[in-house]
């Protein structure tokens, strides 16, 4: 199908895709030493910058034994950091799911003025340093900020409180879903939607029965990446959080605090949770890519 090329773009990385006739042909192969050197450079990089740190996190975390590890994780401040991180992701990810689908839908299926501008704006969180994002929120919602007086008067706390953390996270993770869906939906065109409408389907029916099934794997992929970033975000959240232990500390912030207090074992213990999250994300991502790939080739 025409969209196969879009959906299964990462598929070629997969070891279980059998080599083509072209790849097996001696005439089209590189010489052995090129293959060996290129592969060993890649593997060396991989070991040095990815595997080693990952192993280090877990060995450091468990260096003083499992009991210390467990104590660090069951500490009330650590638990509250985990809770806050989960809460933030639980709010930010569904919101960005809705925003992302709406933005991608608008961009892919309609023609309107300022479309290019909208696409640029969606990319903004990628191009702006997260610290600046945090500062902007402080400027707008802080005590001395634009809405500061009004917020204080109405006893609403955004900066140095949970709402600020959620806002900053939403901003930083905004592009993930939209960016994933826009090219996919553009490639799919709007013929199927048109066919559905001509057959009498309403707008919601068209979305639910035609558009959503076509984008579900791309959507899931975007959500997974969005979630990983939401839980791991440091810069923007650090500025707006205020680092109040047990109240406004997310997991990455908690790791930093513990580390600064030379409490390495505890710092690495919490860090290992984040690393674990990364691994789970990778596995999920690979699985989704695989499903999307097989789906695309089957349909």
């Amino acid at each position, binding site marked *: 199908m025409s969209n196969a090329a879009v959906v299964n773009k990462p598929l070629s990385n997969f070891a279980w895709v059998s080599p083509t006739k072209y790849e097996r042909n001696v005439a089209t192969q590189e010489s052995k030493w090129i293959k060996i050197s290129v592969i060993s450079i890649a593997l060396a990089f991989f070991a040095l910058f990815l595997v080693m740190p990952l192993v280090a996190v877990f060995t450091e975390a468990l260096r003083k034994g499992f009991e210390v590890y467990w104590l660090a994780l069951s500490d009330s401040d650590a638990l509250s950091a985990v809770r806050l991180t989960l809460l933030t992701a639980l709010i930010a990810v569904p919101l960005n799911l809705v925003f992302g689908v709406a933005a991608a839908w608008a961009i892919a299926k309609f023609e309107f003025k300022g479309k290019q501008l909208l696409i640029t704006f969606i990319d903004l969180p990628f191009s702006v340093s997260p610290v600046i994002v945090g500062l902007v929120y402080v400027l707008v919602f802080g005590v001395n900020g634009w809405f500061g007086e009004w917020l204080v008067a109405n006893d609403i706390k955004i900066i140095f409180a949970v709402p600020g953390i959620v806002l900053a996270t939403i901003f930083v993770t905004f592009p993930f879903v939209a960016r994933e869906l826009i090219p996919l939906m553009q490639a799919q065109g709007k*013929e199927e939607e048109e066919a*559905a*409408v*001509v*057959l*009498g389907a309403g707008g919601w029916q068209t979305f639910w*029965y035609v558009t959503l099934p076509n984008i579900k794997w791309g959507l899931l992929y975007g959500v997974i990446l969005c979630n990983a970033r939401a839980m791991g975000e440091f810069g923007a959240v650090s500025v707006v959080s205020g680092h109040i232990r047990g109240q406004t500390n997310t997991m990455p912030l908690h790791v930093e605090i513990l580390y600064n207090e030379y409490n390495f074992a505890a710092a690495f213990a919490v860090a290992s949770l984040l690393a674990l999250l990364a691994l789970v994300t990778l596995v999920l991502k690979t699985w989704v890519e695989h499903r999307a790939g097989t789906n695309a080739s089957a349909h």
Partner: protein
Amino acid sequence: MSIEVKNLHKQFGSFTALDDISLNFPSGELVALLGPSGCGKTTLLRIIAGLEQADSGSVILDGENASQTHVRERQVGFVFQHYALFKHMTVFDNVAFGLRMKPRKSRPSEKVIAEKVHRLLELVQLDWLADRFPSQLSGGQRQRIALARALAVEPRVLLLDEPFGALDAKVRKELRRWLRKLHDELHITSIFVTHDQEEALEVADRVVLMDHGKVEQVGTPDEVYNHPQTPFVYGFLGSVNLFHGRVDDGHLHVGDDVLHDLGENYGPGSEVYAFARPHELDIVVDTQQVSGLSAKVNRVLSFGLNSRVELDGINSAHGQHFEVELSPQRVHELSLTQGQIVKLVPSKLKLFQRDSLHKDHHA
């Protein structure tokens, strides 16, 4: 149901897709919209369906102005060039889609839907594919499923946008015949868009020829083919030879050559385009014959029922190509050689005054 469009106008930026189109499609007819790509035929079809809005003008369905009616309520069946089947649904679910989307009150039960879907799949002779996915079907099968899906909601009209455009020649021919048969059974008012003249002439009751957002001619296949009213229609339907010339005293001057006694007359000195079909030209080897148009033999293609001779223009017609269709015996008599200078003698010539053309036509 009859369809009428009145004074339709559609502009895409600076490009005029439809320029004051008024047409009438009587009930039960199968009409072809024929024209080169970019002539506005697909835009017209999409405006009738409601997938596109005209800038001005109206669409009248069954005597009622439907210009403001939403696509959903127009009750049209639309068949897309690339089928637009729902990839993630089985053939059965695709055909059932329109029925399942109906509001609860008018929605038939699953049992009734199943019966209807199977009846439609039998109609398109693909009942055995009900559980397959679109990706498992051939192009021709997909298009037949798309048609069954469109018919499921009992549309008042059927609109087909280049329905066979994405298929290979053999399947296309088969489906053409099949569509005609289906139409004769169902008698649903249908409009189909095509750029393939053979397809239009073979399948349709009537043909609407379009070019540059305008209607050039409307008529039965016989009328438009044998009595083209404009140079465009003449050039578009079938192959044709074109001569640029000037009329004087009933004689046509093309470069240094003269053709006598045209039968038609124009004011002295009128610039004209003269058209002749390949079978309306004969070749004369004797170049001393005065009444004929000079040309140089390029190639003789003698396969099939008739032989074709391809010639290059010389003198004023330099750079032009001509095609003559002769019987194999005649070609044998002539024993032409490549590069030989001969004269073309038309048995029939259709003249159009040059200023009546809005653009250049090439044979």
